[in-house]
């Protein structure tokens, strides 16, 4: 029997409210399939299943708010037979106080989600299960999900993650001016031959360059968990996307380093669209390994960001402006931007950070190789 748990939705989200099941007991599910939708302070997030199997039992009820890690459903592994006659909760640990309270309330413990050690049901779990659950219809808006409430919740989530970052991560900051003349000229030529629907944005070059630069500086790309850094095998770039109603999310562009520019552009457009529409996937929320924020559109020259824990680096890009540029004894006008790095001093030093920015700058001088 496989326990399907609510996956991590990023470090700033600790719980979610189930708003839909897309599967029923007896349904076959595939790895990567969206099986549920959970509402969070940032968006409704499609929860993907990470196992092949057959749904045996749905545990979480619609409207229930559950912490990350809660067992939401039980699945039978491929080929596994359903247990005969065994109530799914037969081995459930229940505290005596919880059992007594459940009996008083006439509550069936099979419907209570345990949040104690090893899923044990405590008194609190019984009280929570006994509280009338809201009955969300697909389009129903509960009191907690008005735009103002959502904005307040999102502010709280961002505050929690950023507060934790500034408490725990000793940031250091570096910046580098990156000449963009070659990259923009290359882009102009490439886009001149493309219909508007397949044109590339400069942001795509920047994202690809970051994904390639971390290959040479793996200590910028990965997660710092339980006192140790684990570099990531691929660059899943969290793209900071501002939301129209305020706030932001930074879902992942998966394995950006291995994608061509066209694919990356399509994926970026899709990600921005779904992020704004409030329809992201759980894997996108949970697995970015480095974040990129591009505030150039808003007109600032540089941005020194706050690292999104448990990541260890954030790359910021400012606006492209024409600047006087001295090279080989001559002064010319050059479009350029300021690239910045906020990095975790527990994992890397300024020297390595400087190498990373230098590599990033070099990559952007050879756009045809991106």
């Amino acid at each position, binding site marked *: 029997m496989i326990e399907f748990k609510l996956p991590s939705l990023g470090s700033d989200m600790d719980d979610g409210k189930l708003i839909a099941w897309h599967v029923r007991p007896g349904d076959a599910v595939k790895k990567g399939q969206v099986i549920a939708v959970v509402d969070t302070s940032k968006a409704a997030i499609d929860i993907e299943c990470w196992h092949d199997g057959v749904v045996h039992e749905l545990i979480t009820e619609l409207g229930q708010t559950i912490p990350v890690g809660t067992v939401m459903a039980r699945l039978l592994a491929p080929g596994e037979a359903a247990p005969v006659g065994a109530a799914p909760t037969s081995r459930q640990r229940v505290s005596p106080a919880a059992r007594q309270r459940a009996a008083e309330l006439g509550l069936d413990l099979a419907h209570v989600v345990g949040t104690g050690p090893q899923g044990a049901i405590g008194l609190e779990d019984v009280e929570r299960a006994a509280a009338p659950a809201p009955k969300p219809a697909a389009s129903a808006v509960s009191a907690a999900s008005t735009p103002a409430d959502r904005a307040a919740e999102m502010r709280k989530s961002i505050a929690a993650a950023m507060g934790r970052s500034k408490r725990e991560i000793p940031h250091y900051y570096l910046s580098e001016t990156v000449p963009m003349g070659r990259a923009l000229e290359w882009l*102009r030529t490439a*886009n*001149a031959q493309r*219909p*508007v*629907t397949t*044109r590339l*944005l*400069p*942001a795509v070059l920047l994202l690809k360059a970051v994904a390639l630069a971390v290959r040479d500086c793996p200590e910028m790309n990965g997660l710092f968990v339980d006192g140790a850094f684990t570099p990531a095998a691929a660059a899943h770039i969290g793209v900071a996307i*501002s939301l*129209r109603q305020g706030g932001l999310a930074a879902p992942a562009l998966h394995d950006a380093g291995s994608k061509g520019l066209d694919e990356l552009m399509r994926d*970026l*457009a899709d990600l*921005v*669209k779904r992020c704004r529409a409030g329809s992201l996937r759980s894997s996108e929320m949970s697995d970015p390994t480095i974040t990129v924020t591009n505030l150039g*559109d*808003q007109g600032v020259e540089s941005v020194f960001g706050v690292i999104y824990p448990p990541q260890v680096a954030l790359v910021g890009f400012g606006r492209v402006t024409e600047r006087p540029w001295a090279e080989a004894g001559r002064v010319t006008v050059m479009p350029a931007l300021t690239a910045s790095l906020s990095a975790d001093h527990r994992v890397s030093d300024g020297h390595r950070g400087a190498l990373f920015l230098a590599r990033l700058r070099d990559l952007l001088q050879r756009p045809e190789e991106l």
Partner: protein
Amino acid sequence: MTPQDIRAGVIDAIRNIAPEVEADALVADRPLRSQVDLDSMDWLNVIVGFHERFGVDIPEADYAKLTSLDAIVAYLAAKVE
């Protein structure tokens, strides 16, 4: 297609990307992107919207001409003819 039709289509395409925009609140001869919060991805999507609605090709070199609502309508009107 009358200029009024084009204007309505343009506003529709903008609102498709930035639903908070109120058509009446747009000053027609002021730069659009100083009135509406559009990042470069939004702006590209607005232009894709023009392309799809009006069936015209808009080269990247022409983006600079698409400043105000009036300028966009005039540009598209010349292309649609």
